[in-house]
């Protein structure tokens, strides 16, 4: 028996959802029949729309997919304008105000508090400026990621043309629009591992191979990476090399294989990582060759994994923050956006600064940061003097640049704890109160609200994941703590060593952890090496929760509020559902 989602998808899915979306936008949120709402909200994801959580049910999050995180000149301003016009709700966030833009770990953009009635206008504004929310969510090709500076920073092989070709070929492509599950693709040309290919369903990573006596640069292909559902997997090499010009054909074969062989009966088992578990790379390659491509696949070339430094545990940041030289003698300036959230006014200012000193282009990184590109050397000083950079630093403190957080209970239906504002408080407290050991400049702390892992906690030095515990007789928000995750030549997922640490004791636990690291460190070993040499007991002993001067105002169960920061946060006080003007459709409590 197919799942409900598969049944809904078999009826209406892909491009055709749009006409229904417009129909409901015209007739209003309340016109969606109750018994069809689950089906429609599932389908709307394909067009980048997620219904916000319980208590905010007539509001939507929109994800805008920007291939490789590239915002062409003018597009950042469009995003800021749309945010200012449409993305404010009935309550303010105390840290970020009433309107803001989220830069995501998959180099996309998320806006919140959108009303269904406004979606057609927003789509038209996006699309007339070359932007789109198509397939940003749902069971199809998601936003393609890579090193955000592809095409401008040094690369072994040019990735951006391949990313554009894949995006053009697979966005809106009826043959690939209804896959068994989401399909995340990374294409990297840089030799440092910065495309995070290992955690994607399909990864193209730089490689070279001698073919007909000539050294050819291209990509090795890996399949089946991903972090979700407590089942993290590193993508597995399938012994395939492709020239850049053939990458789209190889990708089409693999995507079609997934379409035909992925598990449509169990969404928990649907990602291709589970098919890879079942088949192994040899069978995967054989089936791909026999049934899904009509050319001879090349065997794998020599990869560059030995050179991978990005998030490899060493002291090389790899996050592209700061001032760096481009291939064309111009410069790019990476700015730290704490937890990836930027006020809409600041986003407009970012657009202005990028336009004034660079080409107007802005790029989004997989660490939720932004990069201003194409800055001539003579403009650098003036750019670095801009007031915007006081809040979005090109030289941030390690605890600031290392922080990543997902959406959390503020909006998300899955999360069980507050995340973004909490991670801001954590980072500020740690910066004020904790010294990093000598030479440690790169220290990643990722906070995810649940096991879905949107903040990619398993590849951080310190991984935080939402949980609950009891403290002084009260149920309070808590975090599981993992240690020692990262990518590089030999990626390693975090070890989950602490469970249910009350949120107000987590900063103390991190402080104590770093003190122990400093105390027991052997020579100049990295934090990841330090964690790697601990046995199970030792690892558990590294977690010493402690109350400190850190205070957490959101200890209570925020998922039970309609909005954690509302003056009256009880579910009964929710104004939702609301109409197209934001007025409640029914009494708040009847």
């Amino acid at each position, binding site marked *: 028996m197919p799942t409900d989602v598969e049944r809904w998808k078999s009826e209406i899915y892909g491009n055709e959802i749009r006409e229904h979306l417009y129909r409901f936008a015209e007739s209003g949120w309340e016109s969606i029949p109750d018994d069809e709402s689950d089906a429609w909200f599932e389908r709307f994801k394909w067009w980048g729309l997620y219904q916000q959580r319980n208590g905010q049910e007539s509001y939507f999050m929109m994800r805008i997919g920007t291939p490789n995180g590239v915002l062409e000149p003018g597009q950042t301003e469009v995003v800021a304008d749309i945010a200012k016009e449409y993305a404010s709700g009935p309550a303010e966030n105390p840290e970020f105000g009433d309107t803001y833009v989220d830069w995501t770990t998959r180099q996309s953009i998320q806006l919140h508090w959108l009303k269904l009635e406004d979606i057609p206008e927003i789509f038209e504004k996006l699309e007339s400026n070359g932007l789109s929310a198509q397939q940003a969510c749902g069971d199809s090709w998601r936003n393609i990621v890579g090193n955000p500076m592809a095409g401008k920073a040094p690369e072994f092989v040019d990735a951006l043309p391949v990313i554009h070709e894949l995006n053009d070929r697979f966005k809106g492509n009826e043959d690939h629009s209804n896959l068994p599950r989401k399909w995340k693709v990374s294409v990297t040309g840089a030799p440092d591992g910065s495309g995070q290919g290992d955690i994607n369903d399909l990864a193209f990573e730089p490689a070279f191979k001698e073919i007909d006596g000539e050294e050819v640069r291209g990509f090795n292909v890996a399949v089946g990476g991903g972090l979700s559902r*407590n089942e993290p997997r590193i993508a597995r090499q399938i012994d395939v090399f492709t020239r850049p010009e053939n990458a789209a054909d190889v990708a089409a074969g693999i995507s079609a294989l997934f379409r035909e062989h992925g598990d449509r009966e169990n*969404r928990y088992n649907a990602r291709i990582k589970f098919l890879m578990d079942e088949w192994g790379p040899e069978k995967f390659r054989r089936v791909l060759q026999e049934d899904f491509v009509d050319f001879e696949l090349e065997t794998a070339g020599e990869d560059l994994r030995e050179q991978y430094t990005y998030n490899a545990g060493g002291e090389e940041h790899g996050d592209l923050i700061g001032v760096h030289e481009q291939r064309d003698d111009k410069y790019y300036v990476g700015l730290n956006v704490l937890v990836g959230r930027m006020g809409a006014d600041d986003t407009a200012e970012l657009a202005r600064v990028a336009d004034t000193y660079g080409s107007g282009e802005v790029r989004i990184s997989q660490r939720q940061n932004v990069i201003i590109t194409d800055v001539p050397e003579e403009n650098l000083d003036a750019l670095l003097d801009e007031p915007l950079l006081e809040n979005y630093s090109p030289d941030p403190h390690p605890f600031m640049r290392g922080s990543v957080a997902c959406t959390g209970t503020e909006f998300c239906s899955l*999360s069980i704890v507050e995340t973004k504002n909490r991670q801001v408080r954590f980072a500020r407290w740690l910066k004020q109160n904790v010294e990093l050991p000598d030479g440690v400049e790169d220290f990643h702390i990722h906070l995810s609200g649940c096991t879905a892992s949107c903040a990619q906690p398993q590849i951080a030095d310190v991984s935080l994941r939402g949980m609950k*515990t009891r403290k002084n007789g009260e149920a309070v928000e808590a975090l599981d703590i993992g240690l020692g995750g990262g990518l590089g030549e030999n990626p390693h997922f975090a070890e989950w*060593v602490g469970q249910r640490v009350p949120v107000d004791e987590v900063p103390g636990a991190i402080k104590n952890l770093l003190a122990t690291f400093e105390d027991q460190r052997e020579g100049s070993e990295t934090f990841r090496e330090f964690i790697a*040499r601990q046995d*199970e*007991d*030792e*690892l558990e002993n590294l977690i010493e929760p402690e109350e400190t001067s850190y205070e957490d105002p959101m200890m209570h169960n925020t998922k039970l509020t309609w909005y954690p920061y509302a003056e009256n946060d009880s579910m009964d006080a929710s104004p939702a559902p609301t109409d197209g003007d934001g007025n409640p459709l029914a009494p708040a409590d009847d």
Partner: protein
Amino acid sequence: MSLSLLSPPSPSSLQSLSPSSLCRRRDGTTAFTMLSRGQRYRFAVDKDKTQAPDMLPMPDRLLSVTAYTTLDLLDGEAEAHEFTESAYAVVNATAPRKQPDHVKLEVELDSTQLEQLTPHADRIRLTPEEARTLAADLEKYAEKVDAYLADES
């Protein structure tokens, strides 16, 4: 073989130590712990990293925990003939998405609180009728507990 002290840096009385079991560390070296006057001392025994196989990773939770999980903060207990262990627990009631032909009841105790028991989750399959029987009993006893607590207060 070299012997190096791992922690704490300055042992006060080594003569009265008694060794605990040897354990393999994550980088392939071997370590052991000694206890003296309530203080744990850790020693690394062998720095040869090339011989030992990789350590198994620390166990992650087996059950996903999201806002859809039925109950994420419960007091649990596991009883065996030789021991009883208490830990926080997660309980989830659901039906499989693939062929939802039974109700699934899942229980997992927090692994970091377990000394004896291997980290695991338990899963019970219930027919709809069995699930309703269980629900009815839960309701019945919930009312009994409600009544008792009302009397108490």
